[in-house]
């Protein structure tokens, strides 16, 4: 189960809408081993693509160094799907590289950049196996 604050959910949705029709991506980091997402960081999608995302390497390395100093790790990796459902694509599964993370996908396929319906789902992706999990929004 992913336990997450409502403002983080709102922030992921806002980011997905802003970048629509390109995919948006980012992380929520938290203290190492805590499984608690505390700090959301928008990442640049170096691909600037409606079908693909990749963290900009320099920015990802800067985040890595920062987390080494603060004792944090990636708790949530999020990205958007802008034309398909909020379910991991084959590419998502084959490239998943953070086994400790919750993979959150926000789909803006239905409403685009406007304020309509979005779908937000969370998954574990470990060794090529996708497991959907409940999202518990904390008060």
């Amino acid at each position, binding site marked *: 189960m992913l336990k997450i604050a409502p403002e983080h959910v709102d922030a992921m949705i806002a980011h997905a809408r802003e970048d629509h029709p390109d995919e948006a991506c980012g992380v929520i980091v938290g203290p190492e081993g805590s499984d608690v997402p505390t700090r959301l960081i928008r990442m640049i999608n170096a691909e600037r693509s409606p079908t693909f995302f990749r963290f900009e390497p320099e920015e990802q*390395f800067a985040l890595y160094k920062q987390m080494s100093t603060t004792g944090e790790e990636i708790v949530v990796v999020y990205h958007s799907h802008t034309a398909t459902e909020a379910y991991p*694509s084959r590419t998502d599964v084959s490239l998943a590289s953070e086994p400790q993370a919750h993979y959150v996908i926000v789909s803006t396929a239905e409403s685009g950049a406007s304020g309509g319906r979005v779908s937000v789902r969370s998954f574990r992706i470990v060794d090529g196996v996708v497991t959907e999990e409940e999202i518990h929004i904390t008060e």
Partner: protein
Amino acid sequence: MSVEVRIPTILRTYTRGEKAVHGNGTTLQEVLDDIDASNPGLKDRIVEAEALRRFVNVYVNDEDVRFTGGLKAPTVDGDVVVVLPAVAGG
């Protein structure tokens, strides 16, 4: 002294859970060969067909090796190598 190689979570199954391993060599290639001897299979997750895998970023002392010679990037005792899988998908 030797070169420290920091291992990402996903590859720690090859290092018995260790966050960092140490190897010797005057290039990244030699260091990876050296650590693969005691952590079999690790190198194959970083290197493919004699080049760095497309979705793995490697840094020697904060320099992205894609700009400093790739597997031929020089290393000396005390250097720190960071292996960082790209966060990517579709």
